């Protein structure tokens, strides 16, 4: 029941205010307040039919304990997703220039940006593999959490106080935001670009719209979550079968059913069901990031199959044909141009093969979460090319592909990426020439960098101070 604002209470009518008004006006105002309170009360006591009535919700397992179990998992899970997401954003080194930066208007949201390291060389493979695979595995937990609090969506009246109204508005950001992030992410990794505009913009700014509401929600609900988790012993819960499963005592949030039906599943069973869903998703997905013999286990993930066998038989981000690279563009007329030093140089592929080469084992790791095993790349270290160009102390390098214009037809690498001896302009992989799809005649490979920064079909390197 809402508190009726008492007309004579010290809050609503301070003495001085009352004295300044004539008696009849005050009485009329009091009567109006009273009528309003009555009307509000009437509305509150007569919810619309269906889900707005407490009797509509019958599940005996719905209650603060189950909600808190899922909430606790999501607290850690979504925090990990947010942090790994921010790391991925930083890994593109957006501060280096427009070609790396798909969100040039990020403003203070890029406050934390730092130069992405090159070691350990599997860093991006790990952080982005976790980001995508964990996000997918959390889908059943998210669905279960939303199921468990569904009566709250239909609570009547929708808000009793201004605070409740604002909280509900923040829940729109929370629920709309989390589903928006999951949906855009899940569609993007399947190359289904039906969402409006650039994925990077939607997923990055969407995360920031969401995260404030998430932090407030965690702040407001953590005490209740901890109390609910303590209210029932996990071990007892795990030993309780369906026939002994009873509803929790009524809670202030109204999650517990007013008229619970007989249980058809125990809390243990519900948690197991959700866990089975998560494990199944993990099982048909993780192989595309782990690679090796595990790749074929990724039965439903986009990269659970190798495109071929042999030295070039590993994952192709985008084929040459798809981005418009024809054999003519990379035929005998192909030249690599080095600029940024005192004079511009052009080199043929034979010239490059005549230079001192190095071989390093590095993976390709994509923002979409998949990655390859370490491949043996042979090529010229970028720092040697910087020296050859006459810019041994280059602060960055603009790498341009011969591919027709498109996102990441060019990329800028940072100083530490040029300096790392394992960063190569690769000519060969696993003992064979690069295939056209893997960037023949020459491609960049940099340890720990996101896949799209490893430019294929390189035509020009411009070193900058």
């Amino acid at each position, binding site marked *: 029941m809402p508190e009726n604002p008492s007309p004579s209470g010290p*809050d*609503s009518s301070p003495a001085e205010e009352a004295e300044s008004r004539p008696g009849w006006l005050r009485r009329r105002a009091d009567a109006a307040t009273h009528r309003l309170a009555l009307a509000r009360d009437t509305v509150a006591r007569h919810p619309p039919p269906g889900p707005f009535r407490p009797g509509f919700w019958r599940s005996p397992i719905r209650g603060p304990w189950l909600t808190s179990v899922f909430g606790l998992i999501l607290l850690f899970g979504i925090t990990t997703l947010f942090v790994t997401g921010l790391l991925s954003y930083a890994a593109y080194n957006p501060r280096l220039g427009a070609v790396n930066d798909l969100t040039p*208007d990020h403003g203070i*949201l890029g406050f934390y940006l730092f130069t992405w390291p090159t070691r350990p060389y599997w860093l991006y493979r790990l952080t982005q593999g976790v980001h995508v695979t964990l996000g997918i595995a959390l*889908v*059943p937990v998210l*669905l279960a959490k*939303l199921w468990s609090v569904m009566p709250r969506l239909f609570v009547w009246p929708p808000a009793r*106080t*201004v*605070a*409740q109204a604002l*909280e509900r*508005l*923040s829940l729109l*950001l929370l*629920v*709309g935001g989390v*589903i*928006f992030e999951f*949906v*855009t992410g*899940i*569609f993007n990794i*399947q*190359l*289904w670009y039906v*969402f*409006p505009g650039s994925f990077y*913009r*939607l997923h990055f*700014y*969407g995360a*920031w*719209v969401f995260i*404030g*509401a998430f932090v*407030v929600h965690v702040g*407001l609900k953590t005490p209740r979550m901890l109390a609910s988790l303590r209210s029932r012993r996990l071990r007892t819960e795990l030993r309780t079968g*369906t026939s002994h499963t009873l509803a929790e005592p009524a809670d202030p949030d109204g999650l517990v059913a007013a008229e619970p039906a007989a*249980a*058809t*599943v125990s809390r243990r*069973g519900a948690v197991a*069901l959700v866990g*089975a*869903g998560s494990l*199944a998703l993990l099982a*048909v997905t993780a192989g595309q990031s782990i690679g090796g013999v595990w790749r074929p286990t990724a*039965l*439903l993930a*986009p*990269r659970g*199959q190798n*495109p*071929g066998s042999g030295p070039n038989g590993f994952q*192709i981000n985008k*084929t040459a044909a*798809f981005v418009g690279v024809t054999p003519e563009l990379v035929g005998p007329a192909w030249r690599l141009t080095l600029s940024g030093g005192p004079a511009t140089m052009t080199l043929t592929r034979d010239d490059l093969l005549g230079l001192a080469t190095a071989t390093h084992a590095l993976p390709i790791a994509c923002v979409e979460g998949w990655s390859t095993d370490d491949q043996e790349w042979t090529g010229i270290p970028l720092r040697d090319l910087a020296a050859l160009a006459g810019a041994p102390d280059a602060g960055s390098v603009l790498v341009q592909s011969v591919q027709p214009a498109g996102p990441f037809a060019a990329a800028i690498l940072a100083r530490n990426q040029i300096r790392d001896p394992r960063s190569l302009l690769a000519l060969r992989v696993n003992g064979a020439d690069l295939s056209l*799809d893997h960037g023949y005649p020459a491609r960049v490979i940099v340890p720990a960098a996101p896949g799209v920064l490893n430019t294929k079909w390189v035509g020009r390197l411009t070193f900058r101070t």
Partner: protein
Amino acid sequence: MRRLRHWYGAGPLNLLALAACFALAGYAATRLLTYEPARVIVWFIGAAVVHDLVLFPLYSTADTAVQAAASHPRDNPKAEPARPGINYVRFPAFVSAVLFLVWFPLILQRPDTYKATTALDPARFMPHWLLITAGLFAASALAYAVVHTHRRRSQTLRRRRRHGRTRVHLRRSGGES
């Protein structure tokens, strides 16, 4: 402070936290909505609406329907809700459904550039999903069969033992008389 609490309905910390949350969301939203704002809003709010008013009612109704079908009201109207059977359906159905929910664009071959982009076979996802689904239901059926054969056998055994004891008892009492 008491006036604020009365008017607002919560303490000042609540108000400050929510104000900060909305300010940050607003800052990010102006950027989120730079291009095609109407469509982005539809996607943002639509995401929640589709979940709450389409997906949730759909799976709740499906679950209720399975429960109703499994409870044999004609055979035994006063029977308890069909506890034993239903979760053997729920488990494989739920797992298969979440796999489909996450991977349906690939399963239904929605992204038309998949093959051109990756040089991989786009037709493999549907058979994979169907085989996984078949495996899940088969495993569940096997589990049901094992558990229930075991239970029935132990019930029969118990009944036989009880009957046996009664017969012995009768014979013994018959012998005495």
